[in-house]
């Protein structure tokens, strides 16, 4: 009998980002600017997951992230898991953690902020991690988790 499940193929060396909630998968792609990468990327979405119900997964061949590059995704996918693959084997497992400062990813929720009226890269201090609250470096207003919009 044919195996009709859709499988996301394995990679030899690289990084797998797993347990991404389906609804934020493309935000993660956006945050990591994956559209600018040249290497082989496999993206799967709405896959069955015991934990999440539905999940997304991104497999990046020959790509390894520094903590500060990958931790940004914790804003939208705080429970994402990273598997570092070498020679088809899981060499290391990591989790993501929200950094203390977010530069250039999130839009300020305040329409009267200078960043929404002129070409300025946004900058936020993370003032709360459990319930994500970002304080704009410019207008000092708080953007809540529910208002987070990726630029």
């Amino acid at each position: 009998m044919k195996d009709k499940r859709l499988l996301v193929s394995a990679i030899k060396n690289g990084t797998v980002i797993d347990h991404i909630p389906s609804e934020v998968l493309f935000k993660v792609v956006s945050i990591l600017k994956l559209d600018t990468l040249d290497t082989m990327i496999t993206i799967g979405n709405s896959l069955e997951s015991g934990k999440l119900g539905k999940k997304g997964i991104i497999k990046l061949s020959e790509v390894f992230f520094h903590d500060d590059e990958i931790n940004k995704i914790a804003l939208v996918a705080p429970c994402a898991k990273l598997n570092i693959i070498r020679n088809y084997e899981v060499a290391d497992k990591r989790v993501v953690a929200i950094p203390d400062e977010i530069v250039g990813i999130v839009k300020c929720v305040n329409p009267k902020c200078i960043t929404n009226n002129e070409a300025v890269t946004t900058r936020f201090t993370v003032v709360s991690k459990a319930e994500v609250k970002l304080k704009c470096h410019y207008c000092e207003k708080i953007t809540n988790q529910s208002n987070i919009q990726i630029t």
Partner: protein
Amino acid sequence: MKNKNLVSISDFTKEEYLRILELASDFEKNPRQHILNGYVISTLFFEPSTRTRLSFETAINGLGGRVIGFSDSGATSASKGETLHDTIKMVSNYADLIIMRHPLEGSARLASEVSSVPVVNAGDGANQHPTQTLLDMYSILKTQGTLENLKIFMVGDLKYGRTVHSLLQAMSKFNTTFFFISPDELKMPPDYKLQLDEFGLNYHESKDLNEFLYEADIIYMTRVQQERFTDPIEYERVKNAYILRREMLEGCKKTMKVLHPLPRVNEIHTDVDDSPHAYYFDQARNGVFVRMAILTSILGVK
């Protein structure tokens, strides 16, 4: 404090506030010293303000400095679409310091990052107005003899009022007990009350202006604006509940002073004006000395 920007009240430490207030006191005793001779200071007012602008210009002129600038961006290239970034870069080539007021929040912070000279924020939208806070503190210090352990009443629009938010941030460092008197729609936002919790400070909230007034050292009045109310009937109901009248001040401490950032509309009745508690016009006068202290500290001449 040389070359430091003053964008938010939190940019300065408690020690720096106290130094400014001490300097302001010196300037009040001796307001005509030509220590800013040779300095050119710009006042860039992208939105109108009579009091703040004239106060700064008096401070500069009184100390022998010269002013360049504008009081309405309609007459500048901003109306042609020139960005704030470009305007600031250009002006920082001309002046030794930039004082700016702008309708967008965060504009002064951006200016401080772009400018090669120090920036003093004279008001960025609904965000900060730190020189107002410093003159409020000077007024409190002058009339109460101290900044420590006071009971400060904040009345009116506590939700949108940048002056009360800023004053709260500064005075939290001095063990203040706050009393917040406002209609429900305009209560002090939770984030500010959280800051007080972090400092271990007590505060009280009430809708009734008459309650507890006898405890006040300072009553800081602000205007309840019609445009802040979604329900016009609710506005009609509350608009007169936060008007301070002379008779309400009987029983108050002798040393209690009434402050208001001005302009006042009807929230302080004119019958209060010649009461010994009325301090709001002196408060505005203090602005000149405090601004002298700020400018001379940042330029490094004092």
